[in-house]
């Protein structure tokens, strides 16, 4: 019962569940005979993730919990991100159940890695101790590095894993340097203590440098330009369900961390980091959108698009605390919904060996698979920001927050960018809905292209049997869930919005909360 259990147990209950499930899967993997299906382990992971998400949601009733000598703070804010992460994990697991089936001899480890990675991300979102943040970040990063290279027979996959790994670790060093400077400026690595100590610090310049370093480090993780160089290659090479996961959940966690560090730790320096974030935002939006315009490969295009979306999200950092946090939280949820959905479609369309890669290959998708075509278009439309989708409301909310703090120029750049950005999404949508060109045999063309980009595919092109569609019901369930979430966040965002707003209030420092109230007529008119 809540009253009898200590906070140390209650606060981290979701993480405990996922850890236990991960360990169970690890133990189960060697027990299953070599040729047998790993699906039971997958289902176990899904159940665990659902349980963790549910428990995390339930924690909302327990109020704010501090645990482990204040290194953990479970409040509406952390729960919001944990639920997002949990949901993404559940959906990605559903989508990958059949993906690795028969293709990989160690699918069990994949499920375990997902669980552990989720633990890391959840810890990131609820930690107030930078050391804990760092370790959570590393857990999530390392597990995603591994997952990115899971199809190690393919040259592109290992390459993607390598690039992700090298640049991720590089970023980690910057992040750590930032923490070190924070420690130097304040003598502590606990965000609350840092916030309290900053006004009296003797070395404010160190603090500013620390912010810059931390922003660079996290900027890499969330693939904000100019720290985005890894993103296209990694997204292109990694297995699509993994990309769906790693482009959303770790990003949400990283944003959770960044929001917490900046808004509650470095609240006093907001004028300084706000400028940095504005620059980062503009760069990300522009580079993301213009980069995406030039891509042929769909995953690569979505990689650039994710850079652009990171830019929109970062724009929220220029807003006033309550607005900005709520907007960023909401946007990360909506981005998670649509991006995971898009990558589930790619998973289903391209299969394990990924012979469907470029936009050309998607021509006529709507004729062959009307559901997949419609779903893909829907997600892409959401990314454009068409009303009644998550993407639109997210963007709207972010830019309302931005305008609310008076940064009209930034909002203008952002929305014009989203206007430009619609071109490449639309190009794909129109391809999906046009009829496949009858003269070229689709599969052979795809194969040539795949061979051109991936020599490893020539060696064993047809060894991977495509599972029949009927076998992939879990993936379709996941797809439906993602689509529903995208729609729901666009049409009835009230619940999530309220959660995001309470999350924002939970993490804004008390003095700021008095000055700022959420966007509403009362605040603007009185």
């Amino acid at each position, binding site marked *: 019962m809540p009253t009898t259990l200590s906070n140390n147990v209650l606060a981290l209950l979701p993480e405990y569940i996922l850890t236990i499930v991960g*360990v169970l899967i690890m133990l189960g993997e060697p027990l299953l005979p070599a040729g047998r299906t790993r699906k039971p382990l997958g289902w176990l992971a899904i159940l665990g993730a659902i349980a963790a998400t549910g428990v995390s949601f339930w924690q909302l009733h327990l109020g704010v919990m501090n645990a482990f000598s204040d290194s953990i703070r479970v409040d509406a804010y952390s729960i919001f991100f944990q639920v997002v992460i949990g949901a993404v994990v559940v959906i990605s697991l559903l989508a990958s159940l059949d993906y690795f089936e028969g293709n990989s001899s160690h699918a069990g480890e994949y499920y375990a890695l997902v669980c552990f990675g989720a633990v890391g991300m959840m810890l990131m979102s609820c930690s107030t101790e930078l050391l804990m943040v760092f370790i959570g970040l590393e857990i999530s990063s390392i597990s995603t590095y591994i997952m990115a290279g899971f199809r190690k027979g393919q040259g592109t996959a290992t390459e993607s894993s390598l690039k992700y790994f090298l640049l991720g670790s590089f970023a980690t060093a910057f992040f750590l340097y930032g923490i070190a400077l924070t420690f130097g400026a304040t003598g502590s690595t606990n965000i609350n203590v840092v916030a309290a100590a900053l006004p009296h610090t003797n*070395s404010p310049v160190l603090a500013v440098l620390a912010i810059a370093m931390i922003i660079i480090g996290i900027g890499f993780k969330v693939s904000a330009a100019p720290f985005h160089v890894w993103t296209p290659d990694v997204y292109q090479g990694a297995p699509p369900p993994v990309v769906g996961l790693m482009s959303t959940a770790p990003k949400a966690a990283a944003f959770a961390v960044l929001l917490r560090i900046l808004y509650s730790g470095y609240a006093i320096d907001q004028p300084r980091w706000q400028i940095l974030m504005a620059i980062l935002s503009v760069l990300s939006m522009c580079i993301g959108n213009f980069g995406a315009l030039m891509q042929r490969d769909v995953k690569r295009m979505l990689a650039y698009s994710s850079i652009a979306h990171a830019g929109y999200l970062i724009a929220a950092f220029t807003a006033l605390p309550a607005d900005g946090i709520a907007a960023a939280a909401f946007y990360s949820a909506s981005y998670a919904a649509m991006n995971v959905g898009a990558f589930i479609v790619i998973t289903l369309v391209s299969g394990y060996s990924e012979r469907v890669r470029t936009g050309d290959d998607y021509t006529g998708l709507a004729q062959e698979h009307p559901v997949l075509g419609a779903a893909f278009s829907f997600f892409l439309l959401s990314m454009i920001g068409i009303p009644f989708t998550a993407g639109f409301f997210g963007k709207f909310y972010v830019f309302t927050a931005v305008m609310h703090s008076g940064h009209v120029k930034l909002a203008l750049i952002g929305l014009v960018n989203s206007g430009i950005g619609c071109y490449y999404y639309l190009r794909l949508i129109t391809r999906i809905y046009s009829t496949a060109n009858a003269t070229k045999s689709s599969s052979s063309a795809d194969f040539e292209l795949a061979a051109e980009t991936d020599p490893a595919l020539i060696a064993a092109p047809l060894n991977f049997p495509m599972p029949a569609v009927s076998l992939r019901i879990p993936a379709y369930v996941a797809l439906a869930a993602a689509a529903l979430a995208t729609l729901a966040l666009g049409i009835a965002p009230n619940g999530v919005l309220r959660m995001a707003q309470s999350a924002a209030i939970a993490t804004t420092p008390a003095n700021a909360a008095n000055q700022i109230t959420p966007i509403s007529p009362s605040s603007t008119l009185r």
Partner: protein
Amino acid sequence: MQLALFIIFAVLCVVFALNFLFQRHPINSALSLIVVMMSLAVIYWTLGAEFLAAAQVIVYSGAVMVLFTFVIMLLNAGEEERTRGSKIAYIVGIPGVIAVFALLAYTFVHEHSTLGMAHLGGHLNNGVSNLEEVSRILFTDMLLPFEVTSILILVAILGAVVLARKEH
């Protein structure tokens, strides 16, 4: 005494770090790095972090870098070539690096008065050991990170096994 130690080992660090940078053969780079790490261990010791000094030797020089040399030997990595890409890196990288360094150094020099001086062994030492304090905090304030690290290591083991194992 401390200044002498610092100067000797700082110079060692920098020289071998530069050697690391300019050596073409990975194994030479690795060895230079080991020297840097060992020198850092001494510097840690002069700053009163003897536990870290030992850990630095055991973990970094004794485990991590052994792993590196091991892999270099296993894969028989040869000398690296200077390619077009690296020229670009020179042109773009070096000014950037100098800028970063200038920024950092400026900040530190600017703040030097607030940072104070270092004493051999430090206040932490008090003639005995700060091991006790380190371990106490490790098992009280920092208990959770300590425990969670086990998950990290588990993940790393899992990953190493998954990635390095040959597919049947």
